[in-house]
């Protein structure tokens, strides 16, 4: 990739930085307990929680830093932080 004039870039390359590698704890989603309130998706600082067509919420573990905010804020306690096996 040629050096951009003036240190500029178009979006996309942050996806090369797989921040999931930062994790110590991993959020595990219990979809049975989930009430589809969407809080987790709204408050994730990475924006990596997506909602499927049938309202199933899943984090993208490639980027999830394991901060625990989703688990902390889920009103139905449907998310648990579990230590990851590396």
């Amino acid at each position, binding site marked *: 990739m040629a050096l951009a004039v003036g240190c500029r870039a178009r979006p996309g390359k942050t996806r090369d930085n797989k921040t999931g590698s930062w994790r110590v704890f991993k959020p595990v989603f219990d979809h049975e307990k989930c009430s589809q309130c969407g809080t987790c998706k709204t408050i994730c600082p990475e924006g990596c929680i997506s909602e499927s067509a049938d309202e199933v919420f899943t984090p993208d573990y490639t980027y999830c830093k394991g*901060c625990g905010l989703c688990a902390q804020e889920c009103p139905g306690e449907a998310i648990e932080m579990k230590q990851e096996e590396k």
Partner: protein
Amino acid sequence: MVDKNLELFDCGHRACGGCGAALAARLVLKGAGANTIVVSATGCMEVFSTPYPETAWKVPWIHSLFENASAVASGVVASLKKQGRTEKVVVMGGDGATFDIGMLCISGAFERGHDLTYICYDNEAYMNTGIQRSGATPYDASTTTSPAGSCSFGNKRPKKDMPQILAAHGAPYVATASVAYPTDLMQKVEKAINTPGPCYVQVHAPCCTGWGFEGEQTIAIAKLAIETGLWVNYEMVDGKVVKVKKVVRKPVEEYLKTQKRFRHLFKPKRQDAEIAAIQAIADKNAEKYGIDIKLKKE
């Protein structure tokens, strides 16, 4: 209506896990929409989002210097006007860039009345350079340049009242918001963007690294700030407070004891006088803005 499902802040940015500022960036862009040009000041948000060649911003974005975002934005607004373009201009700066080093430029921009929205993500210190004191650092908070020590309780001054200062410039819409209440935040951003003239939204964005708490507590702590009255969520239209978030108030201690930056008020010895002084600040806020929910006693 802005599509709130749009993710305009990409994954792979380098913010700390649980970062209040990163969440603020995401939510602000959701409130603003894709037809937005962002002008950023130097600071955490700029640094963790744009290490060349990676950028997390899916909207046009420009960063110049620490203190001149408002001036750069003034130029962008003028140019768009001359070209007959519709993009909205949103300035994003931390409390350092906004309250302190950027004071000249924000005052000038607001005095001139440019049609822009200024979002200050307030994490209450110069975080990117290593947690130094700013004009937004609360009373008695320990930072590296206002450290608590054997002859100091930390920062000696209360928060500068930036919202009032900008309202005094004639800003048509000024609001405070918090990452604790994302829908409210997005609504305020949308309102600011659609109000002609210079508008200001100050977003409380707790910093786990700088304040000393676990990233998962960011929202809980932001809520406590509001519940204790140390942060008030309100809106001002043409300089008059029109809406305030009311709370059943908790004692400030419940907020202070959650963060390492206030630890010196409890350990090695409980500092009653200092805690009382902070309670007085909260009480004053409560009175000024009328935040207390009056519970009827039977």
